[in-house]
């Protein structure tokens, strides 16, 4: 019974997000006639693909009870690696591998500091947020590399031939499917939830907690680097300050998606719905010329209310039932 109720409340979060998404679509449609056009949808998804990719691995890390604040810095570092390796005359495919390797290495350092030394991930990745971004600046300074070959930049802005679906969105959909299967249909996924729910119990159950966590941090580095490669292609510019401050954005998407900040709960379906809610809202507001900074009022308020709303509802509910109980006992006397 208790389990059933838990399941119901887990689903009701996604139901709420669906309602939010519908509201977003209605709002967007009433604000601008261009909102529901395929071309606009194409633009919208192209604009948030990097954040979407990073939010996949962030979801896993937060479910496991940790956090990675360095994702946007790893993205910047990977972007810089793309720039300098290309400038050095190294072929593109090798540039991509180097960028992915550097990202994985950055994630490995995070993971080792967290698992081997037992340091809180919040502090470790706050440190590497500054360190990795700093390294990106040390390597490339305030320069920009933008002479990438068109095959690469076309991947960033091109669509699947004959459609309006961006290639980068296809990449995200494939990754998302993979992550959903791994998190919700495999033993690794069960282990991640177990670790987030109770680390000690998970260890006694034979789960190699540190190994799983290390793997998740490496994965986070790898996907952040991939997001860096995508962003560099999309804006055809490798700069040290690419995606500055995106980490808070990614965390916002994940939390709005119903992932508990203390780990152990939430689903990727919720996170993907949250992506479309936030992406849709930003796009709709952008269409009526509301600047990105002012859009953030809506995003921030939404994030707070995503947790505040259910809490208040629960308080009112329990207060009502308490009153009803009191009234009942009074009648019995």
């Amino acid at each position, binding site marked *: 019974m208790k389990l059933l109720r838990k399941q119901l409340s887990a689903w009701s979060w996604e139901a709420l997000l669906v309602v939010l998404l519908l509201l977003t679509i209605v709002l967007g449609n009433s604000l601008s006639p261009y909102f529901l056009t395929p071309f606009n949808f194409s633009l919208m998804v192209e604009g948030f693909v990097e954040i979407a990719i990073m939010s996949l691995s962030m979801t896993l890390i937060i479910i496991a009870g940790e956090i990675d604040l360095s994702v946007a810095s790893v993205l910047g570092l990977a972007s810089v690696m793309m720039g300098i390796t290309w400038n050095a005359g190294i072929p593109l495919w090798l540039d991509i591998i180097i960028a992915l390797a550097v990202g994985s290495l950055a994630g490995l350092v995070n993971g080792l500091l967290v698992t081997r030394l037992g340091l809180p991930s919040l502090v*470790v990745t706050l440190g590497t947020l500054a360190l990795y971004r700093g390294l990106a600046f040390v390597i490339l300074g305030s320069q920009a590399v933008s002479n990438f070959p068109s095959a690469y930049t076309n991947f960033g802005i091109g669509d699947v031939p004959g459609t309006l679906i961006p290639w980068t969105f296809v990449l995200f959909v494939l990754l998302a499917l993979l992550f959903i299967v791994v998190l919700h249909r495999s033993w690794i996924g069960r282990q991640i939830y177990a670790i987030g729910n109770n680390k000690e119990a998970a260890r006694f159950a034979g789960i190699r907690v540190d190994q799983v966590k290390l793997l998740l941090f490496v994965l986070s580095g790898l996907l952040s680097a991939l997001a860096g490669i995508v962003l560099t292609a999309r804006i055809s510019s490798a700069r040290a300050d690419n995606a500055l401050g995106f980490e808070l954005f990614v965390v916002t998407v994940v939390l709005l998606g119903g992932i508990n900040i203390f780990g152990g709960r939430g689903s990727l379906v919720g996170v993907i719905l949250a992506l479309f809610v936030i992406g849709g809202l930003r796009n709709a507001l952008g269409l009526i010329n509301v600047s990105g900074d002012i859009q953030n009022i809506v995003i*921030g308020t939404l*994030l707070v209310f995503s947790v505040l709303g259910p809490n208040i509802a629960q308080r009112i509910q329990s207060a009502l039932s308490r009153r009803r109980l009191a009234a009942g006992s009074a009648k019995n006397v």
Partner: protein
Amino acid sequence: MTTTSEHVQEADTLSRRSGNRLVALVSRVRELGLLVVLLLIVAVVGVQVPEFLTLSNMVQILLSISILAIVAIGETLVILTRNVDLSVGSIVGFAAFVAANLFKQNPGTSLLLGILVGCALGLVLGVINGLIVTWGRVPAIVATLGTLYAYRGLEFLYAGGNQVSASDVPDSFLSLATAPFLGIPLLIWFAAVLALVFGYWLRASRTGRQLYAIGSNPDAARLAGIRSGLLVFGVFAISGLLSGFAGVLWGARFATVDATAASGLELQVIAAVVVGGVNIFGGSGEILGAMLGALVLGTIDNSLSFLRVSQFWLQAIDGAAILIAVTLDAFIKRWVQRLLITRRQR
């Protein structure tokens, strides 16, 4: 029979007391260690570049960290209670713009009124944070991440792309930061006095000790009759108030203020607090430590320019400093635990 158990009890309290003393000693050692690092940096850089050691450069370093230090006082209080305030940068920026804009629109405004407006704005924003966290039971990291965005957005809405520059505001406002008192700029006095007052209050007052209790074990603190909700609400309000005041000073110091002022300050503040030995999970640390943390980071930043190291290294070194500080803390903690265990066994 009774005597033996009394003996055991006595021995137990004795060892526990010496254990407590050891923990207190270590926290002292932690701050002393930071001081040693600071002196080492000053000595090494001073030998290579004599101009680094001038009084005016020391004042420069203090000036560069004063605003951050004032915000770090509030952040320390919040972190001690096992919470965090990520919205401080947005509050500082908002208060800076509102205060500077007030003087731009009404040049005749009294200085005191400007300060009060900035502080009041900070207090209101801090109170909102506190309400969301305590009454709304939203985890602090989620709540203040949301308000980080919301407050900054509100500032953009209010500023509407406008900018206040030094020529727009009266000199009396600018002098709030740089006017010397006993040869030292006012800004440094503000930070020093606030640090001393809050540091003493935290160490000596009952409420101060209760903040540590909440951070060490929230459930136990509640059972012990500590009104944690009220106190956590209070520290968020104080953090907002101090950020509002720091915002006014920001406006006075930098004079040119737009809606992006103090973006990202929150991470620098948390870095200073953590390097200063305040446990990110609450329960231990001191204002003095946080101030030393800010001083060490500020001194590193300042020496880089003297050593002609590219400013691009600055951020990387800040990051490395955080990592080194927490790694050392972890080793010290392990060492103390091992020491306590062997003592108890003896």
